[in-house]
């Protein structure tokens, strides 16, 4: 990225904070070649922006409505050319401690120009981006959205829209009440993360607890009866494995 200007995106929910960063970047521009290509006020906006307008660096505030900076960073990993990420925060003792542990770059607001300059020049010498595992540790709460690739774009699916998740050979199928999507993540990891929202009914299937309408016993071909889950908003019936039969009793409304 020798002579091309460094393309930067500012993501912060507070207008004054964005203005301040723009002023500071303007000051930096006297020394290094850079350009602010866009601003966003939360994670959702930022992801849309970065897909239509790729950038080299994203300055991400941590605490934002809709989608916070730490979750955004996890979704950005799926971009074909993800930007380098620098977190900005006024105060978050927990996150800062974790940043130190995982050597993630962060700037404390109010940000000093010299410190910003240093962070930007370090990007030229390519410091590794924060690892997904590290980001997950930084943000122990479940994501608000799942992100899937769709025709070279990243599509976000609100976790609250998901009816069930089913493991296929290499993928996990996400079923919402209108569509199916393919997700490249492991079901076990998803179960760990979304254990509050979903329950395992089968070795290969997690169902959203609030989408379970009831249980039903249906006869199988070999004569044995089998429990299935009835879902709200989706016609399909999903089998409950023998091992997970206890959930019929626990959630039992069938």
């Amino acid at each position, binding site marked *: 990225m020798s002579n091309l200007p460094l393309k930067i995106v500012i993501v912060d*929910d507070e207008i*004054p904070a964005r203005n*301040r960063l723009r002023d500071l970047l303007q000051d930096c521009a006297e020394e290094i070649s850079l350009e602010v290509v866009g601003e966003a006020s939360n994670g959702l906006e930022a992801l849309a922006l970065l897909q239509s307008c790729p950038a080299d660096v994203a300055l991400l505030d941590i605490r934002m409505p809709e989608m916070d900076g730490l979750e955004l960073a996890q979704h950005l990993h799926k971009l074909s050319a993800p930007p380098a990420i620098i977190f900005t925060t*006024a105060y978050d003792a927990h996150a800062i401690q974790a940043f130190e542990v995982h050597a993630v770059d962060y700037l404390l607001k109010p940000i000093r120009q010299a410190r910003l300059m240093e962070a930007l020049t370090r990007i030229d010498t390519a410091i590794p981006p924060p690892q997904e595992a590290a980001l997950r540790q930084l943000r122990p709460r479940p994501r608000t959205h799942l992100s899937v690739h769709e025709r070279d774009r990243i599509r976000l699916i609100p976790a609250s829209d998901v009816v069930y998740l089913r493991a296929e050979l290499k993928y996990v199928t996400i079923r919402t009440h209108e569509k199916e999507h393919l997700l490249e993540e492991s079901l076990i990891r998803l179960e760990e993360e979304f254990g509050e929202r979903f329950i395992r009914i089968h070795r290969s299937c997690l169902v959203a607890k609030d989408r379970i309408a009831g249980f039903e016993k249906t006869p199988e071909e070999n004569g044995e009866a089998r429990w299935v889950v009835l879902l709200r908003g989706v016609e399909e019936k999903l089998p409950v494995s023998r091992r997970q039969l206890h959930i019929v009793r626990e959630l039992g409304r069938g």
Partner: protein
Amino acid sequence: MKVCATLPETLTSIPVSQVTSINQNAYPDALPNFRNLGTMLRILVSVNAMGFAAALLKAPTGHGFMQEFMEIAAVIQPVLLISLLLLYALHRPLARLPYATGIAAVLLLELILTTMTYWFGGTKADNIDMGAISRYWIFGLGVTGVLLGYFNLRSRALSPALSEARLQALQARIRPHFLFNSINAVLSLIRANPKRAEQALEDMADLFRVLMADNRQLSPLQREVQLCRQYLQLEQLRLGERLKVEWHTDNMPPDALVPPLVLQPLLENAVYHGIEPLAAPGIISINIFKHHDEVHMVLRNPYQPDGDRHGGNKMALNNIRERLALHFDAEGRLESKISDDIYQVHITIPFVVTT
């Protein structure tokens, strides 16, 4: 203040007499506030409990116990009720007496009341049983003494808590998140709008002056409201359109006395938990009014069910509850509830003004 914060280290180097004199300066002995509902309740409950205990000790059997208790109650209840009324009426003159004289006056009052009740109300009024009356005297004086001692200990125990609460308040109040974000917002204004930046810094100075002041004394409600307005202006600076504030203060008694910083921390919570997690604009409403000699302060903000950790909120609520209890005992209340996506905090305190 400093005295109490550093007392443990300096205790060894200061002669004992000096320490007690410092203590006396900080927390002068005083009779309890006989007009406080909490004080009255405590007296009622403890006297009856002691009467109960006395009956239990005197009675040989379970059956005799009821009779004993009725007999004791016949003397105790009138004395108790008349005492409460007289103490209520005499609260001011009694409070003006030196502590020792005040104690003596209360003891004398109880002695007279016990004698009179025994004399006029007792069943065996025709022949005075000196043994029985002296037992009631001892009981009356004992109970009064124990209660006065209890109230004195209680106020001593709570007084340091007041100053402790101030320190705690200081730590809980200034959310670093707010401080640094506000400084950042002011920095962003300096180039584009220096006038507004100046005003913001002035608001910040006022806010921190109060935060760092000695907040043990009650202060006028008007002052607290003014402070809250300045605080919200600072938040408005950062959040702009996202923060909408509605004040309903038409029926507010501006000179009512309130614990300082009773509202500001609640507003800070409202912004942090109610407004900041919202992308769309949210409303904070503050309704302050006087009703039947009570001042009501009602705060509402949007409730975010999956907003992050509410630990900070709980801490602030407990802190304010504690301070209300220290100032008003049972007459100060704080209730919080959630309904229809609105989080509401309702504070009720007795209407007090400076005399």
